[in-house]
């Protein structure tokens, strides 16, 4: 808790909390204090936290929907092209466009593409893989994946002022406050 000294580059200031409830409250108050660029770090998903932070998005669901739609159309078209246009084959007198027979593979293609959409979409929107991130410079952060809950106000926030942020975080009653070097 030494007073702020001149660091070469500052990513933000981070506070450590003991329980998820404290973190939710802290996030609510951070948002109410007018900070926009801040993030919370938790060992498991905490329900109510993103709401407290004021984050709302549905990019992943939309990506999954579009990928699923693409998969269904692509796999159905593939079967129609191969079985009707490119190499029509008479199987037991069925129509060449015997579409009910194409549904199982259409469905599987939909699921396959949608699943890749969910997996890759989640990673891509999260900016992962991220080989380096400043938050890992904080020694206490090693427990962020075990049993500690962190809130970091980032230096790029328009309201960011080192001393004011410091005082504000202290008012949240955290276990510790650390500067995050970029």
């Amino acid at each position, binding site marked *: 808790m030494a007073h702020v000294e001149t660091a070469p580059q500052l990513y933000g200031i981070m506070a450590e909390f003991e329980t998820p409830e404290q973190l939710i409250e802290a996030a609510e108050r951070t948002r109410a204090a007018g900070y926009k660029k801040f993030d919370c770090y938790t060992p498991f998903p905490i329900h109510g936290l993103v709401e407290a932070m004021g984050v709302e998005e549905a990019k992943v*669901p939309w990506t999954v929907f579009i990928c699923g739609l693409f998969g269904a159309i692509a796999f159905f078209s593939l079967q129609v092209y191969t079985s009707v246009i490119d190499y029509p084959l008479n199987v037991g007198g069925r129509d060449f466009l015997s579409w009910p027979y194409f549904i199982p593979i259409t469905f599987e293609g939909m699921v396959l593409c949608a699943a890749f959409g969910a997996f890759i979409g989640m990673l891509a929107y999260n900016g992962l893989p991220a080989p380096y991130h400043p938050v890992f410079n904080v020694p206490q952060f090693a427990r962020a994946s075990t049993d500690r809950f962190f809130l970091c106000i980032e230096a790029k926030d328009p309201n960011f002022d080192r001393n004011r942020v410091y005082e504000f975080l202290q008012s949240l009653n955290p276990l510790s406050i650390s500067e995050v070097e970029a």
Partner: protein
Amino acid sequence: MQEAIKPKVQEFPLFEGQQTYERITDQIARIPENPHPPAWTVMFGIGAVGTLMLITSLVWLLIVGLGIWGINQPVAWGFAIINFVWWIGIGHAGTLISAILLLLRQAWRMSINRFAEAMTIFAVMCAGLFPLFHTGRPWVAYWLFPLPNWLAMWPQFRSPLEWDVFAVSTYFTVSVLFWYMGLIPDLATMRDRAKSTLAKVIHGILSWGWRGSAVHWLRYEQAYLLLAGLSTPLVLSVHSIVSLDFAISIVPGWHVTIFPPYFVAGAIFSGFAMVLTLVIPFRILYPGLREYITMNHIDWMAKVMLATGWIVFYGYLSEMFFGWYSANQFEQFLVVNRFFGPYWLAYWALIFCNGVVPQLLWIPKIRHNLLLLFIISIIVNIGMWFERFVIVVISLHRDFLTSAWGQYAPTIWDWSLYLGTIGFFIMMMFLFARFVPMLAIAELKDIWHRLYHGHGGHNGHAGKHAPAPAPTGKGGES
């Protein structure tokens, strides 16, 4: 999200002993971190020997050809398809636990989903081998995919066998994605705990630099829930399509409409049996797991087995009914041939293993006796294998014309390949236990927080700490 199950939670605790976030992490993460117990080496060795047998069987198969197997006309499917359906059915319980129970908001799945998903992946690996090598020329298996090739031919998309290719490969891919996505936060935990640089680097790469940001968790949960939503119809479709391999034909005993639901129920039945077969010894090998896979979990799994066992048994009864009601002499003959034909032993073994033995699970004392439960689960596994034997062999060996009747007997190579896949499965399960957190750490902490530790806000319910510990080991009460 867990509102519905909250009142029950005090009565049926999901955790034993006093838990903290740190304890949950430590109990699970230290298993791969610490040296393995001696029993691990023994089991891994058994698995490795089985894997060598598998490799030998496959190499010999490639050198000589399919003639080393017992298949011939009229029973051309034999062990390959029996084992394929058996393994893929086992895999289905993993998806059921991870996806369907998630959608049904069953909090108890959190303790077993990672484990069961791993089981799914390895079981599907074993399953995939059989049809691949049953094609006779596995080196041109890519013909099954719609790739432009020098034959200028496309796959036959109207065939359920072709649907199988897409269903099983999609199922495997999606299962791996689902499993791996669940692992990412836990691998990050392993990375943060790692002492050696090598372990840090490996876990760092595998966890993609996961840092647990709240916004990341939001997207992660959205993706996870959607994957569960996609896997649920997927798993139903996979075994339905497997059953259509049979049901679309006109072979007596196969051409029945009950096949898809009956196969799916059978898959879940055998899969839960396999989960129990694995969980019970793993709890002994790693006592730390007992705090998370409690007697309540085991009890519930046994109940699911009992319920799905009845659905399967209903399937057997309706097959008899179909045989009679069809007024078709071939269908009627099939039923009689099952009862009293040359393979009567397989049929009655099936009825005994899947119909009679699981009824013991009505008795709570038996559901809490790990040894008996272990034995019952093995019997169910055997019974489900006989079910596929009955379906494949009895229907094929005597169909329409008596001149085309024949007999089927597996050869030593059939057995060595089958036992080899079991060895491979054991080896993979023990490797999994050695290197990967066996239970989903983040999900367990989440559920523990929500059920027992939450206070204030949207989590306003009693119980700051885990309830009084239930008796451990054998005879935990419910």
